[in-house]
């Protein structure tokens, strides 16, 4: 359990920092909460529509799925990196094959134009 002490401290600092900045903001800011304050972007520009009023392009979803896939890939990289020395050349070649297969996927996605926005 003692190994987790730094993490506990880290969490405490994070919580304290958040609480402190929220309290400080409350103490420092102007009391009035006008309409502008409640807008998503307090820049003075009127939003054209509400975020929930129209559907977004499917492309966003494509990007999200690709993100998750590469996210899972990095999970495999993590234990490999920890044991890089012991796994030696064998492990290195193995991981290169793994990455090469995913590079094939990357080339495919790129060439198919899935990353083009226009």
């Amino acid at each position, binding site marked *: 359990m003692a190994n987790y002490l730094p993490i506990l401290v880290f969490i405490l600092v994070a919580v304290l920092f958040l609480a402190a900045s929220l309290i400080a903001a409350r103490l420092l800011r102007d009391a009035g909460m006008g309409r502008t304050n409640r807008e998503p972007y307090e820049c003075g520009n009127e939003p054209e529509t509400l975020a929930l009023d129209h559907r977004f392009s499917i492309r966003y979803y494509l990007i999200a799925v690709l993100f998750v896939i590469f996210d899972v890939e990095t999970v495999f990289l993590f234990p490999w990196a920890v044991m890089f020395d012991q796994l030696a050349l064998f492990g290195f070649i193995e991981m290169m094959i793994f990455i090469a297969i995913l590079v*094939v996927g990357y*080339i*495919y996605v790129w*060439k198919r134009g899935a990353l083009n926005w226009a």
Partner: protein
Amino acid sequence: MIDPTEFWLLAPEIFLAVAAMLLLVAGSIGRGVRNRPAAAVALLSLVATALLVLWAYGKGGSSEAFLAGMFVLDSYALFLKLLLLIATGLTVTISGRFLEEGGYRPGEYYSLILFAATGMLFMVSGYSLLSIWISLELMALSSYILAGYFKRERKSNEAALKYFILGALSSGVLLYGISLLYGATGTVHVGELAARLGDLVSTGEQPILIAVGWLLLAIGLYFKVAAAPFHVWTPDVYVGAPTPVTAFLASASKIASFAILIRILFEALPALKADWQLITALVACISMIWGNLAALTQDNVKRMLAYSSIGHAGYILIGVLCASEEGLWAVLFYLLAYAFITLGAFGTVIILEQREYAGETYSDYAGLARRSPFLAASMLVFMVALTGIPPTGGFFGKFYLFAAAVEAGWIWVALVGVLTSAISLFFYFGIVVQMYLKPSEDTTPRPMPAVGLASTIAICAIVTVLLGLVPGPLVELAKASLIPLP
């Protein structure tokens, strides 16, 4: 720990995966590849893979597991790999039409088929529950995408979604079962699992963990072979998916799922033989009864074939539950015969169907014998074979299965099989009656189907009849491809 030379034994799978990737990249550059070259490349890679399978088996085929016990290349795996490659090849030859007419990109389609085939080949060689599971997922994921390949058709979207959600659920159930068995025994290696389960069962330890574990594992597998009452995904997926994909799911996918079902029940769970025999008998009977009764009420031929495929899962399970040599080779015989019959039947459906799922009802087959006698004759062969009437492979397949059941003392299961086969006569011959006795409203002769499609149907019909006339060689082959009995 791992001997790199052992990778040669899996050279066919690795080759097929590389071929699929090359096809994928080639299909993505510029306007992509056209249908015919892509199909030719896919077929050539399947042939090359089949040759590599034979080479690898000659080099080091044995019932010893290799690569740290992850895989095995025995004669059982050899038989099924060649069968799967044939079924995949025939799927490729019947796929051209929908790609060309719908304007769908062929590059991805054929590479997904090859990826699914790669997963299947790994599956039948898998000797650890984990290597089997990940290969199964490779096959399943490719199949979900293929089921939704008719992107502009709502039904195809529905098929992909239902298939994905229920498939993911069944994979989860399967994995849960594996994890509970791992919790009880501390291993996922098929051989070790059998040994430790044997010890635990004989001392009576961990009965609940083992019972729930193997039940979940078995339920996941029944899901994958589309046996009732775990079949709910089948009809909608089979109807909505592009017909070549349906044929692929009903033949290759089913064969691979049965292959791992048998491998796991026989080689990993021999200690629980009496339990799984009983459950499998129940599932087999429910599948035969439900599949055949529901098929009676269908108007759509694809949906009828979907229910018929549930019924046939029941017939094949009869051979599995015998847990005898006769039962096992009867299953292998039937899997091969059923692959040709079902690919041929769906091939005929492809020729008759038009855009937007039209041309799939019984009445669309009216007067077909007059319009195109060749097509009607081959459909007649397939329907006769599905019912199990001589002289077709379907007859001997069912005969061997029922005989094995009687010999192993499962007479009541065989009886259900015979009775449901009699029921099936009605809906299979409903099509025959339409084709030969009903007059057609549309008397124009059909345009000649594409060469690939027509020759595939011809091959399937010829093989179906040949198996009914000379079943001996295939029986000998199946008898040489057994795994240790539980």
